[in-house]
């Protein structure tokens, strides 16, 4: 298990003030953050304002030393026993970094594998299986500079798995990828946790991605933890409105009146708009589902329903809601 306890990271930033004067200012990127990573589970790190996510990942992967607090990986301290920790973790970042462009895919993996102490047949077999796993077997002997974005990203995944890490950190892994490739990658990530038992920490700008993949979500604001729960609980606990939308061909005065009554009864709100196609679009928002009373109301008025849709609150609404509240 990876346990981060009360981790804090402060950067000292030098600011030039005129020719010779300079001033150090302290920026707190992560403040008092605690979390755990458990094998087989994916946790998501979402940020409302400012940095903190990448810093957290870099501290877990030993690249950065926390200003205070501890991170232990299977009992090893990430600062003192960094060599043991490094063998158990790996990081995959989005974008096209962390690969040697002049080397082929296979040569990249050979090099990184050697840096993890793998060699000979074991390394060879590992590389073959990874290349197959990420679908780069055919392109293994092509220099990375000739890879497409998606291929580079898949090679990054292979690099991130070369030491068979128990803990995997994914920093914006789908950044800049086309939709189908991103979807394939998400599938791969969920398999890594479910089938290979990896503990995964994921950060992403795409909130639906976090919602789809993560078992638990940590929401941080200016480096401080503000919420931690499963995505479903998070959306439910905030009691956000469900939106119910119906399109009807005409709106009589009596129907309008009954709709207002319905919304009043349920403590919600309504919006009515005339569309370009001479139809009416009615949107009802409320904490409780109004589908059944709305449909019986429309039936009573003998009004045809052209379209009906409901929209459950998503994690994105949660984040937006929190951002509004925190004055982002």
């Amino acid at each position, binding site marked *: 298990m990876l346990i981060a306890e009360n981790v804090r990271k402060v950067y000292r930033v030098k600011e030039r003030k005129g020719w010779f004067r300079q001033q150090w200012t302290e920026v707190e990127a992560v403040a008092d953050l605690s979390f755990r990573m458990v094998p087989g589970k994916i946790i998501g790190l979402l940020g409302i304002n400012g940095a903190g996510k*990448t810093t957290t990942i870099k501290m877990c992967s030993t690249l950065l030393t926390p200003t205070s607090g501890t991170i232990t990986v299977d009992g090893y301290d990430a600062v003192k026993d960094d060599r043991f920790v490094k063998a158990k973790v790996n990081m995959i970042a989005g974008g096209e970094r962390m*690969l040697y462009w002049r080397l082929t895919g296979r040569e990249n993996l050979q090099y990184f594998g050697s840096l*993890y102490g793998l060699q000979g047949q074991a390394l060879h077999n590992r590389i073959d299986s990874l290349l197959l796993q990420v679908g780069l077997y055919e392109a293994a002997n092509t220099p990375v500079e000739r890879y497409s974005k998606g291929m580079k990203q898949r090679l990054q995944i292979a690099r991130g798995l070369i030491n068979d890490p128990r803990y995997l950190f994914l920093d914006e892994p789908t950044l800049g990828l086309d939709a189908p490739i991103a979807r394939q990658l998400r599938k791969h990530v969920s398999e890594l946790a479910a089938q290979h038992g990896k503990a995964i920490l994921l950060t992403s700008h795409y909130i639906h991605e976090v919602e789809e993949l993560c078992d638990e979500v940590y929401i941080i604001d200016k480096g401080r933890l503000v919420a931690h729960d499963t995505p479903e609980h998070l959306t439910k606990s905030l009691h956000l409105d469900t939106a119910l939308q119906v399109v009807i061909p005409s709106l009589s005065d009596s129907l309008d009146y009954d709709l207002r009554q319905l919304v009043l009864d349920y403590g919600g709100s309504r919006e009515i708009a005339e569309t370009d196609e001479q139809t009416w679009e009615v949107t009802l928002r409320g904490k409780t589902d109004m589908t059944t009373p709305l449909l019986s109301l429309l039936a009573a008025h003998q009004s045809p329903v052209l379209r009906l849709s409901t929209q459950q609150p998503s994690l994105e609404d949660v984040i937006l809601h929190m951002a509004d509240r925190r004055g982002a």
Partner: protein
Amino acid sequence: MFHVAKATFIRNTRVMIRAYPWSFVIGHIFSGVYTVLFAFFAYHYVFAGQLDGNFVHLTGSSDYLSYAILGGAFYAFAVSTLMNVSRSLITELREGTLEAVLLTPSMRRGYFLGNVAQQLMRTLFEFSVIVLVGALFGLTLSHTNVWSAVLVWILSTGAFFCQALVLGSLMLYFRDTYITQNTLFAVMAFVSGVTFPIPYLPEWLQPLGLIMPLAPALDAFRQCVIQGAPLHAVLPQLFHMAALSLIYLVIGVWGIRRMEKRVMESIFG
């Protein structure tokens, strides 16, 4: 450690074969060859072979051309080793691979060892070309004590490697290669006895030469090549070099370690 060195050696060789750093190699060879040409022109055409009386006394030989040509060749060799090693980490930083390397539990020693071993082939090639051209323009090799010369050359590689660690940390500190390296190289050419014996310098400048491994290395190499001195005759220079190497190694290892941390903090800041 050794298989990290081997892997780095193989990686660098592959990169080199795919994108040969011709401009650096040619640049180093050219700058050596120009020193040769300058010495030749100055000696034959401008000064008609007439030397200052003190020169023989200071260098133990009247062979100015060999003196200057070896100076140029050895300087090019020092610059080349310093550049190849010191730029390795900052190049990883610029190409975005530094984090991937630092993520691994590999020893940095192995990484640098692989780097220096790989660049040895290049510097050896550059050095041989310059010496060959030098031989055409009046470098005398007939008295050379080959084995001591080779040994001094190899020990010098070690010394330049240690200095390169310090230079590499400075590069990471300033986030610059161009200004840092060229300033060091200009000072090195001035104070290390490359084109003229150090005692010609004003006294207050001479100590600067003492902190450059190039000065004792070049002195020892010249004695082995020009006068055929055996290894024990140049022991003082070798000790001087070893002491400098040790100091640079300690500072360099400390500096690189510190800079790695600092760089990691400032990538996203």
